């Protein structure tokens, strides 16, 4: 039943009336076990209904509530108030345009996700009557961690290269391409390489590693990107130095 008064400083931006964002202070009576999302919900319900933000599951599986909490990309439903002291600054996810308040424009990511073809392109097309695709536990484990991505875009907010080079396809998209490339049922790697091995694909990555640091699902996109770099490099040298070898 314990409550404490928490100060939140939230970025506000109304595209119809504001020329630029501003910070608004809220004093919120919070329960001990609350996360930032609970505080935001309380603000919207009882203090300021105009506050806009995305959220859904409140349990770190939907990826909707990504935002900057004290300058660090976090899921608002996973940022526990008890871990913060003083005024908590809540801003929209970095490196994305601000639509309104804490809502960002995510079209860029959605477009990039489409471009890497994040779906199975089967090696062999089977009719339903031919039966199911079979996979050993080892084959599953090979790509499983990369399938845990919830598209929350925290990695894009953390990645300095994405901040500097907006065209960079980015950690999550490439990690998801890697997820399918590593899937034994898949035969679409060559098709994905057009995007993934392009200059604005994996090659803008400088292995800062911030993406893996902030990923709430422990996908380790940085690892995926380095593996893609190594494989793409070996491909390139094989193709250019030993063209008689079939891929």
């Amino acid at each position, binding site marked *: 039943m314990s409550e404490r008064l928490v100060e939140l400083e939230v970025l506000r931006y109304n595209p119809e009336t504001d020329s630029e964002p501003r910070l608004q202070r809220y004093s919120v009576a919070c329960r001990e076990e609350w996360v930032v999302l609970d505080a935001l919900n309380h603000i919207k319900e009882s203090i300021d209904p105009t506050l806009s933000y995305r959220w859904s599951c409140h349990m770190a599986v939907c990826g909707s509530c990504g935002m900057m909490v004290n300058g660090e990309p976090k899921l608002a439903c996973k940022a526990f108030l008890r871990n913060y002291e003083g005024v908590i600054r809540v801003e929209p996810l970095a490196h994305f345009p601000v639509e309104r308040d804490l809502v960002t424009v995510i079209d860029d990511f959605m477009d990039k996700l489409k*471009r890497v073809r994040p779906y199975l392109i089967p090696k062999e097309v089977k009719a339903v009557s031919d039966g199911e695709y079979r996979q050993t536990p080892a084959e599953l484990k090979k790509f499983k961690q990369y399938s845990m991505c919830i598209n929350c875009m925290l990695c894009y907010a953390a990645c*300095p*290269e994405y901040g*500097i080079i907006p065209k960079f396809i980015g950690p999550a998209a490439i990690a998801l391409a890697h997820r399918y490339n590593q899937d034994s049922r898949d035969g679409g790697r060559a098709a994905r*390489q*057009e*995007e993934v*091995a*392009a*200059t*604005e*694909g994996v*090659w803008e990555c*400088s292995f800062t590693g911030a993406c893996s640091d902030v990923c709430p699902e422990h996908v380790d996109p940085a690892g995926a990107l380095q593996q893609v*770099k*190594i494989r*793409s*490099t070996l*491909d*390139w*040298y094989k193709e250019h130095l030993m063209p008689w070898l079939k891929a």
Partner: protein
Amino acid sequence: MAISNKPIVWGPFAAGGTVTAFLTPVLVLLTLLAAFGHVPDVLAYERLHALLGHWPAKVLAAAVVFLSLWSAAHRLRITCHDLGVRADIAVATLLYAGALAGAAASVLFLARI
């Protein structure tokens, strides 16, 4: 979007980063020991001159120099870009040329030993 030719510069960078990771600290330690007056035997003129007189040693030394300079050049190129220098092509040309020049110089000097 076309498949990039970045592997040309990234391959040697990765190799050079690995080589410098394994070798550079101990090599710097050797020269540092010499700086403090405890010249390791291999750094005496006769020993080093004899060692680098052998062609395999020359090739190895040249390879280590090239990979070390190349990986440093590539990393510096990325760093310049991180720090906001937008003229990437100019920076890359300058740095890679510098690395190649250093490597070429080492080959010339090693050939004379």
